[in-house]
């Protein structure tokens, strides 16, 4: 269509600088215009390799557009339209700019052609999304934001370590499928699966997302994990360990969701569960599995955003998202109920809703490989999904015990965004070819067979029976549940206690010993002795030994590396700080 290739990230990143210039209606129009432009850009984008830029003797490739990156970019920009529509009423410029950079970062990752470009945008995503948590402006959200950024820094370091080793081994950083042998591919995979929230590295997700702002959570639930899924599909397809981790993840998310009292935390655990299907599909790596991954990511972004918008609207209207404090909202927030239900029915794969045509593809991929336990556990997780998202949340929030809360449906733009997302959920479910035509491989999969419909409806109906039998047990309980974030929340405290109670007393004890024993003449003698020691022994060791060693070591390093890579990382870090500066300025 167009001869010039425009990177859609540019629209978001450059566009963000002009955001503070607009006021009122103009600003709202401008905030909608940016994602619409980016969407059109992606829609008409030609496939090929574009955007090769020479920086410091290094070629960065910004634009690799093929069918795989195209389908992800399509849904990312479509979601950006819905997300900004949902957040139009938000006054804070900072929140909009953080979201723009976050979406821009995810598109940068999607089109990245080499690992260092990917890494730069990867970090950009982490450092911009943390502001979506901090703008909630509560003490607990700022603490959660710090934990979020620390965990992601750790994940980024894993990824960077993998990239550096890969460069040392092969000298080639083009993004490609890596054979699963050696340290580098697995370090890179660990960096990816931390962002995909695979347990035990995934506790950051349910820790951080419920703390984000109402609109921030809608953005966050769509981009970080799905960008990681995209990276896994491109680089780590066919890694056997992912088939196991994915299934564990699907069950783990569902099980933990049952324990939750905060609706947004419950949904956060269901992100883990749903991303489990995608990670599992990446692990299989067959054509139908990768198709399933893309289709499920596409559908998932829409219905999960819809669910977060629904519960976010409840939080917006009532000031709480806790199941134990909500109930009987159906009279006051009927539209939100319907939109949330559509999201719930999509995630639990009702026939005619989007989950039905996407989730079953991943399960079918397992069936095709005759991995029976995979089919059973993934189907079981699907029953659990229906239980928590479609039955538990609407029942206890909109029905259940009437708490006489004064509330009303949210502002029009929020409802319009929910309407658009609902429309797509149903549209994809009814007309799956729309989605299937975009997938990377030709699709030979028909979701609407009699058997598949009968299977799904029976599972859903009898899950419902189980729900009504056990409804007493499911009532919201004002408690939190332990997860692997214990290790850095309590574990860090144990470390600090060690430092305070053991190391600090020993340290001050030494000082005490010095003071007591510190007769002057001893000090002088010792002083002279240590002075000699310092001058003669230490200096010799330092000069000849360590310094010389470091010199020869760096000689070796210089031979291994071209020198460009350090400058490159330097650029990456500078870019990250530029992001930070941009926020401080506003």
């Amino acid at each position, binding site marked *: 269509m167009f001869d010039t290739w425009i990177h859609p990230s540019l629209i978001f990143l450059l566009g963000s600088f002009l955001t503070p210039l607009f006021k009122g209606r103009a600003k709202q129009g401008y905030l909608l215009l940016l994602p619409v432009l980016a969407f059109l850009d992606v829609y008409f984008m030609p496939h090929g390799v574009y955007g090769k830029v020479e920086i410091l003797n290094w070629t960065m490739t910004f634009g690799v557009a093929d069918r795989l990156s195209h389908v992800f970019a399509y849904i990312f920009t479509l979601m950006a339209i819905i997300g900004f529509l949902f957040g139009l009423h938000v006054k804070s410029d900072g929140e909009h700019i953080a979201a723009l950079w976050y979406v821009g970062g995810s598109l940068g990752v999607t089109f990245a052609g080499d690992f260092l470009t990917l890494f730069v945008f990867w970090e950009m995503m982490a450092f911009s999304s943390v502001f979506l948590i901090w703008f909630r402006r509560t003490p607990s959200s700022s603490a959660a934001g710090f934990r979020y950024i620390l965990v992601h820094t750790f994940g980024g370091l894993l990824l960077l370590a993998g990239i550096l080793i890969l460069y040392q081994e092969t000298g080639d950083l083009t993004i490609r499928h890596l054979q699963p042998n050696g340290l580098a591919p697995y370090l890179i995979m660990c960096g990816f699966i931390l962002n995909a929230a695979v347990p035990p590295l995934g506790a950051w997700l349910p820790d951080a997302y419920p703390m984000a702002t109402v609109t921030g959570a809608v953005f966050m639930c769509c981009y970080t994990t799905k960008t990681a899924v995209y990276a896994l599909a491109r680089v780590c397809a066919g890694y056997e360990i992912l088939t196991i981790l994915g299934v564990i993840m699907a069950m783990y998310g569902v099980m933990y969701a049952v324990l939750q009292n905060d609706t947004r935390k419950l949904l956060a655990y269901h992100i883990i569960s749903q991303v489990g299907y995608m990670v599992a599909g990446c692990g299989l790596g067959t054509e139908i599995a990768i198709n399933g991954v893309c289709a499920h990511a596409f559908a998932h972004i829409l219905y999960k955003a819809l669910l977060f918008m629904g519960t976010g609207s409840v939080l917006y209207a009532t000031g709480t998202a806790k199941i134990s404090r909500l109930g009987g909202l159906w009279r006051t927030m009927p539209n939100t109920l319907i939109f949330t239900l559509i999201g719930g029915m999509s995630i639990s794969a009702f026939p005619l809703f989007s989950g039905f045509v996407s989730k079953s593809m991943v399960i079918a991929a397992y069936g095709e490989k005759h991995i029976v336990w995979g089919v059973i556990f993934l189907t079981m997780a699907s029953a659990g999904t229906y239980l928590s998202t479609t039955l538990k949340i609407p029942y206890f929030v909109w029905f259940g015990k009437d708490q006489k809360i004064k509330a009303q449906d949210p502002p029009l733009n929020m409802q319009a965004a929910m309407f658009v997302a609902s429309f797509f959920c149903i549209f994809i479910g009814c007309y799956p070819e729309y989605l299937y035509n975009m997938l990377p491989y030709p699709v030979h999969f028909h979701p609407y067979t009699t058997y598949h419909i*009968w299977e799904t409806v029976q599972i859903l109906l009898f899950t419902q029976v189980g729900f009504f039998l*056990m409804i007493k047990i499911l009532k919201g309980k004002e408690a939190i549940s*332990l997860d692997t974030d214990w290790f850095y929340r309590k574990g860090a405290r144990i470390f600090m206690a060690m430092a305070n109670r053991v190391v600090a007393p020993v340290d001050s004890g030494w000082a005490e010993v010095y003071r007591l024993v510190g007769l002057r003449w001893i000090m002088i003698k010792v002083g002279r002795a240590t002075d000699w020691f310092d001058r003669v022994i230490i200096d010799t060791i330092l000069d000849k030994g360590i310094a010389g060693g470091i010199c020869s070591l760096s000689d070796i390093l210089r031979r291994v590396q071209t020198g460009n890579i350090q400058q490159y990382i330097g650029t990456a870090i500078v870019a990250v700080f530029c992001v930070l500066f941009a926020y401080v300025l506003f």
Partner: protein
Amino acid sequence: MLGRLIAFLWSAAEYLLGKFIVKFIEWCQANLKLIKRIGYLVMFLFVATDFFVPRHHVHFFGDKIPGFWSAFGFVACILVIAVPKWLGHIWLYKDEDYYED
């Protein structure tokens, strides 16, 4: 002008949608018995007709048994509730201020 018209029509549509949903729920609550009966009937019909549904891709034994997925759905639901709740009570549940001392 056009923007205002769209906004007006939109809000009217959403108002009517809300009204309709509330009326529908009120009707359901008034006819609870009927709803329940329809529910039982639907469940029965799906299990009964499962005997005649053609099975093209048989992956494991469960695909051959009529009504298998009904039993599966029920058992899965019970397990997905019971196992985590049990784990929660013996181990995972902590007070909400657990991390805040």
